[in-house]
């Protein structure tokens, strides 16, 4: 019944076409952009645009680009009301140039109170201006819209539309009506009209990486979200261990306070000290993770604001690679930060010098900041790196300890091109730096094997460090650590 009623419903449309025939002069390549829509479903929007495109193509006045080719390039232009849409003249001109066409048609279909309004513009890319505008109003049925748009195709092509013009009713029309009903049910929350950059910042503040995804940096967003999840996962693990130690500490300490037997007190004493050391260690590690998590979160917010919609960028069919739409590169804040990276690591000493042989070693944490500042020695890029790491050694009775934090300024030699093993995805670094310990100074040498996670700005690395120290407690000594780190690099 609905289908029949649509077919029979042939209300006359009050058509108004503002048209001045201008013949194509320099070429006849035409791109019909997806019509933007309001009040109609996406399938219906696509259907109408496709039919309009096909109708023009059939008339053979223009070489019309396929939908797939047209949609292959996605442009993000500043100043658009909705980031990612391309409605402004500047954006359409940019897009036309990228598509290498001579003309572009862009328009919109709006439904208000069961009546359709179609507006469109015909742009000449060569002349860099709008050459036609067209519109039709008060079309009161979907099939009438299709008919009128078919007529528009004739007009755009500079041809007279025949009186016998008809459209085939398809089941798409019925689908459209059912979709329209569903769409009416959905009530999306509308955000206040705030700048896209701020919107991006808000999203990333609430959920790390969300702002990046909003700004079409999906992989970066996922990488940041993943980094936070990894930090959170490690924090959960550390917290679980902390709870174990804390539980042991509380029980043992309560027993110690309640106990009267000197023999049992002597047994409880080292256990309390050990549990206390463990809880402190896990707590310190948690504090480190808190700093790392907060740093990533903060950087994520900064990043979200920087990459928030402001510059033109274009996404082509190759998802994940971004090409600047401008021929002249612009230097942004993000460009300045590009190349920096932050890494959180855990490591454990494997070998110790004789002065530390009576001590047991434990797993500790640290972080490093990688900078793009450096020099090329032939094909080897040497970058400046800062590394901060904790170290802790305890005697078996926990009565003696050697703990502290080392701060290292180092050169990181990128040997990836020199060592073919693992290819370019597995970056190889040599590490040489000067360290400052709590009670002395020393040198650190080491190596990193860094694995880049696809197009994510995330990396995992196996790291080793040999610490050669001269401190007041150990004298001349050394220890060698092996560890892993998770890195977030600003692309």
């Amino acid at each position, binding site marked *: 019944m609905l289908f029949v009623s649509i077919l029979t419903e042939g209300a006359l449309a009050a058509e108004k076409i503002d048209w001045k025939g201008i013949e194509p002069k320099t070429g006849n390549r035409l791109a019909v952009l997806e019509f933007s829509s309001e009040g109609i479903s996406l399938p219906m929007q696509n259907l109408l645009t496709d039919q309009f495109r096909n109708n023009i193509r059939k008339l053979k006045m223009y070489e019309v680009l396929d939908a797939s080719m047209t949609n292959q390039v996605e442009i993000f232009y500043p100043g658009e009301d909705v980031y990612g849409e391309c409605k402004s003249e500047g954006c359409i001109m940019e897009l036309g140039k990228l598509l290498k066409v001579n003309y572009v048609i862009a328009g919109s279909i709006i439904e208000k109170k069961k009546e359709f309004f179609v507006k469109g513009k015909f742009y000449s890319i060569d002349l860099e201006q709008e050459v036609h505008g067209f519109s039709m109003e008060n079309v009161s049925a979907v099939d009438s819209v299709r008919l009128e748009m078919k007529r528009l195709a004739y007009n755009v092509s500079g041809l007279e539309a025949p009186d016998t013009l008809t459209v085939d009713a398809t089941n798409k029309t019925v689908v459209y009506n059912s979709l329209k009903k569903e769409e009416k049910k959905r009530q999306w929350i509308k955000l206040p009209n705030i700048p896209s950059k701020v919107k991006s910042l808000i999203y990333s503040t609430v959920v790390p990486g969300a702002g990046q995804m909003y700004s079409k940096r999906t992989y970066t967003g996922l990488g940041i979200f993943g980094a936070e999840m990894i930090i959170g996962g490690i924090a959960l693990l550390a917290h679980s261990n902390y709870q174990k130690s804390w539980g042991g500490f509380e029980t043992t300490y309560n027993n110690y306070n309640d*106990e009267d037997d000197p023999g049992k007190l002597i047994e409880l004493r080292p256990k309390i000290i050990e549990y206390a050391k463990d809880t402190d260690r896990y707590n310190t590690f948690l504090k480190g993770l808190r700093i790392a998590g907060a740093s990533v979160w903060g950087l994520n917010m900064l990043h979200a604001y920087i990459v928030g919609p402001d510059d033109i960028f274009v996404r082509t069919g190759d998802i994940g690679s971004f090409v600047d739409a401008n021929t002249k590169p612009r230097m942004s804040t993000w460009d300045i930060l590009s190349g920096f990276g932050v890494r959180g690591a855990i490591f454990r000493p494997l070998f110790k010098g004789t002065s530390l042989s009576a001590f047991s070693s434990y797993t500790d944490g640290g972080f490093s900041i990688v900078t793009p500042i450096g020099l090329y020695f032939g094909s080897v890029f040497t970058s400046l790196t800062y590394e901060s790491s904790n170290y802790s050694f305890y005697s078996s009775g926990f009565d003696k300890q050697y703990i502290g934090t080392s701060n290292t300024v180092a050169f990181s030699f990128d040997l990836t091109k020199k060592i073919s093993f693992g290819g370019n995805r597995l970056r190889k670094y040599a590490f040489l730096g000067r360290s400052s310990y709590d009670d002395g100074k020393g040198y650190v040498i080491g190596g990193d094997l860094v694995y880049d996670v696809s197009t994510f700005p995330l990396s995992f690395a196996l790291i080793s460090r040999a610490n050669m120290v001269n401190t007041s407690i150990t004298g001349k000594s050394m220890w060698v650590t092996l560890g892993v780190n998770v890195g977030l690099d600003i692309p």
Partner: protein
Amino acid sequence: MLDLTYHKYFQQVIWIFIIILFSCNDAEYQLDNESDPENLGLEPPTIFFHPSEFDAIKVGAKDTLDLYCYEVSDAAGAHLQIEFDAGVITIDTVLTGDFFRNDTSGPIMFTDPIVFTDQQNGTLNIYLFYVPSLSSVSATGTMSMAKVPFTVKGEGSAPIRYTENTVLRGPSNNSITLNKFGEGSINATQ
């Protein structure tokens, strides 16, 4: 069901963020239990009384004094000679502690006096011997060697101390070097 799953994951995410944002308490402690030998100012290996002080104990009251060794290694026997004020306390009896106990049996013990009727000289001698077994011939650790139940006889403050005749020996009859002994005191009131 979907709601439950959602809430579960939401809670996990919230926990992760809470843990990231807030670290936990550091373990703060003071190992100041008065019975802890390390708080008695003693240097092991040695022997001491537990408790080391009986404050305001009433005349006529009964209590027990433990004779403790502190981190003593490989002891097979002991002669513990104790001086006390016979005017203030009377020894009721002497019981064996756990230190010289092997897997199956307690130590062999002699006391002098054998019968605690005449304690005018205020000296108690206790002889303890570890009974060797197939698995061990000596005792090690911090434990009670003997327990001395006593009754408060008269008012006053009186020290209790190990004399210089006190000695611990190893399985080869070797003398075990002990550091300065711990002392005790009884402050009896009416």
